[in-house]
C-alpha cells in the first residue's frame, strides 16, 4: 500500500468529485477539491499536493493551459479525465506534460491503479537497471534481453524503443514522444515506423502478439508499457 498523499482534484461535476474523493480517501489519501481552474493554482502553492487529477472540460478555461503553467514550477504528476473520441485532446494534454489519462466513464479500480502508478513514480526512485515482465528479463547494464533464459536478439532501434518504454512503465507515451526518444526529430510524423517496431517487440517478447499483455496500444494516442 502507498503512503498517504495529498491529491488535488479539479472537476466541475460534483457527483464525479464525490465518488472519486471517497475512493481516494478509502485509500488513505487527502483530497483537495476544486470545481474550477481559478482556485486550483492557489491550492498547488499552499498545500503542495503530490498529484493532480484534472478534468479537461472545465467551464472556466483550458485544462491544457493549466498543465503547462503547472509544469513551469512543479514536477507534480497530472492525471487527465477525458471523454472518448477526443484523442486530439488527450494527445495535446500528454504532450503538454500530463502523465496519464482516464477515459470517462472509468471504474474505481482503474482510477486507483493509475493513481498508485503515478505516486510511485513520483518518488524519486533510483533508476532501475533490471526489469522483469512475463518471461522476459532485461539487464540495462549488460544490454541483455532474455526470454525464459534464452537471449533474445534485438536490433538497435528495437532496443532503444524497449528502453524508452521501460523508462516510462505504466505511463502513456504518445507517438510523438516515442518517435523523438528513439529516432530523434527525423521521423516525428512517421507513426507507422513506430507501429512496426512495436509489433517487432511484441513478436519477440509477448506470448501472444495479437493480444499483448505488456506492450499495450492506446488507440489513437500512443502506447503504454505495463510490467
Amino acid at each position, binding site marked *: 500500500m502507498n503512503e498517504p498523499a495529498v491529491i488535488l482534484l479539479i472537476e466541475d461535476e460534483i*457527483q464525479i468529485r464525490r*465518488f472519486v474523493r471517497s475512493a481516494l480517501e478509502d485509500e488513505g489519501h487527502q483530497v483537495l477539491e476544486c470545481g474550477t481552474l481559478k482556485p486550483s493554482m492557489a491550492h498547488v502553492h499552499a498545500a503542495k499536493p503530490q498529484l493532480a487529477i484534472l478534468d479537461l472540460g472545465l467551464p472556466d478555461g483550458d485544462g491544457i493551459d493549466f498543465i503547462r503553467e503547472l509544469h513551469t514550477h512543479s514536477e507534480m504528476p497530472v492525471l487527465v479525465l477525458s*471523454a472518448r473520441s477526443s484523442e486530439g485532446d488527450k494527445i495535446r494534454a500528454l504532450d503538454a506534460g500530463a502523465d496519464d489519462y482516464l477515459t*470517462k*466513464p472509468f471504474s474505481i479500480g482503474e482510477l486507483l491503479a493509475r493513481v498508485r502508478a503515478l505516486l510511485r513514480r513520483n518518488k524519486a526512485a533510483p533508476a532501475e537497471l533490471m526489469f522483469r515482465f512475463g518471461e522476459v528479463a532485461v539487464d540495462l547494464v549488460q544490454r541483455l534481453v532474455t526470454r525464459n533464459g534464452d537471449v533474445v536478439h534485438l536490433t538497435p532501434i528495437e532496443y532503444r524503443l524497449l528502453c524508452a518504454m521501460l523508462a516510462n512503465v505504466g505511463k502513456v507515451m504518445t507517438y510523438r514522444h516515442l518517435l523523438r526518444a528513439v529516432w530523434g526529430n527525423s521521423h516525428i510524423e512517421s507513426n507507422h515506423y513506430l507501429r512496426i517496431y512495436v509489433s517487432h517487440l511484441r513478436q519477440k517478447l509477448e506470448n501472444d502478439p495479437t493480444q499483448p499483455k505488456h506492450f499495450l*496500444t492506446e488507440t489513437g494516442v500512443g502506447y503504454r508499457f505495463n510490467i
Partner: protein
Amino acid sequence: MTAIPPEPRSINSSLIWAIAACLLVTLPLLPLHNYLDPANIAMLYLLAVTMVAVQAGKRAAILAACLNVVLLDFFFIQPRFSFAIGDVQYGVTLAVMLAVALIISKLTTGLQSQATDAIERERQSRALYELASKLAGATSLEQMAAATRNFLHRSQGCRGVLLVRRSDMLQPVEPEHHLDSELQSAAAYTAMQLAQVRNLLEGNQYWMFLPLHGSTYVRGVLAIDFSATPQATINARQALYAAVASLAAIAVERLHFVEVAQRVQLQMTDERLRSAILAALSHDIRTPLTAIYGMADTLALMQLPQPARDSAEAMREQALWLNSMVENLLDMAKLNAGSIRLNQEWQPVEEVIGASIKLLGAALEHHPVKVMLPPDFPLLKFDAVLMERVLCNLLENAAKYSPPDIPVSVNAQLAGDKAKISVCDSGPGFPPDKLDKVFELFERGDTESSVPGVGLGLAICRSIVEAHGGKIHASNRDGACVTFTLPLDTPPVIETEDDE
C-alpha cells in the same frame, strides 16, 4: 435603342433632284441674260453643282455639271439657242464644274460616313456600357445571361447563347435558349477546352464561340449566331464581341465566387451548430453516466449484503451498456452528418484487434478470442479509433449472442486487392431472412430478444467500413460471421535497419 441605318437616297431620285436643281437655276436667269455677264452666270451654275454635290452625291453632281454646261451654252452663250463650234472653249467650264462636283461630293461623302461611324460607335459604346452596368448588378446567372442575350439581340441583331461550365460540361444558363445542333455543342466545347475563339459554318448558319476567360480557367462560352449579320459588320466588330465576352466572363466569375462564399458560410454555420449540439449532448450525457458508473462501482466494492451488491453490479453493467449505446449514437450522428474526418494512418491490423479485445475486457471474459493472422500481413490504412469501434462492436455482438465459453475468432486474410477481416462466433447465427438487413439502422436480428441493444452497432460498423472504402456483410457459417474488407493500396516503404 432600335437603330435604323440612314436610308441611302436612291439613284433615281437623286438624279431627278439634280435635273430639278439645274432647271431651277436656269429659269430665273432666263430673263436676266442681258444684265449678267456669262462668267457670272457660270458661277451661279457652279454654285448649283456644289449644292447638288453636297446634297445628292457623286453621280447627281456629274450629271448636274454636264447638264449645266449644256444649259449655259444653249441659253446664255451667243449665238443663243444653238451649239456653235466656238463653244468648245466651254469645255474648260465643264472640266472645272466636273472637278468641283467630284471633289465636293467626295468630301461630303467622307464627312457623312465619318459622322455616321461616330454616331454608330457612340451608340455601340453606350449599349456596351449599359450591358456592363446590367452585368455588374446581376444577382444570378439567369439575369446576366438574359442581359447579354438582349444586348446582342437589340444592338447587334444577332442571337446569343450563354453556356457555363459545370463539372467539365457546358450547359446553357437559360434552358430555353440553347444551341441547335451537336456540331455547335462540340465547337463550343472545343472553344472551352482550347480557350480560343471558334467559328462554325453550318449550312447557312454562322456561329462564333467565344470562351469566357476566368482567372483560373475558362468558365463558359458565349455563342453568337451571326446568320443575319453581314460579314463586314462581323469583321468590324470583333473587338466589341471580345469585350462582351470578357464582361460576361467577369460576371460569371463574380457570381461563382459569391456562390462559393455563400456556400462556405452556410456550411460553416451548419457544421458549427452541429458539432456544438453533438459536443453539448455528449458532455451532458456522459457526465451523469460517469457519475452513475463510478458510484455503482463504489457501492459494488463495499462490504454489502449479497442482494445489494448484485444490484450495484447490475447498475454498473447497465451504465456501461448505456455508455456504449451513447457512443454509438454520437458516432452515428457524426458519421451521418458527414462531419467525421478520417484520421487514416498505415498500421498493423493486429494492433487494433488487440486493443479492441483489451478494451472490451470484462465483456469477453467468458469468450476466449482466437486471432488468426497470416505472417507478414501488410500494413493497412485506416482510422484506428473508428476501426477499434468496428471491432469492439463486432466482438461485443459475438459475445452477446453466443452462449458462454464459446470461442470467438478474428480472422484476417488477403483477397485480391483487399484485406478481409472477419469476426465469427459459433452461436446460433443471424436469422437467415435478416442477413441482408442486420446493417440497417435500428434493425435487430431478433426483435424480441432478451439481449439488450437497439440495432445501432452494426449500422455504425457499416458506416465506418464504407467511409474507408470497404464493404461489410454478414453470413452464417458454423455460427454468425461478419466480414468486412479494407482496400490494400501500397503501404509506405520502411527503410530496413542496418543490423549491428
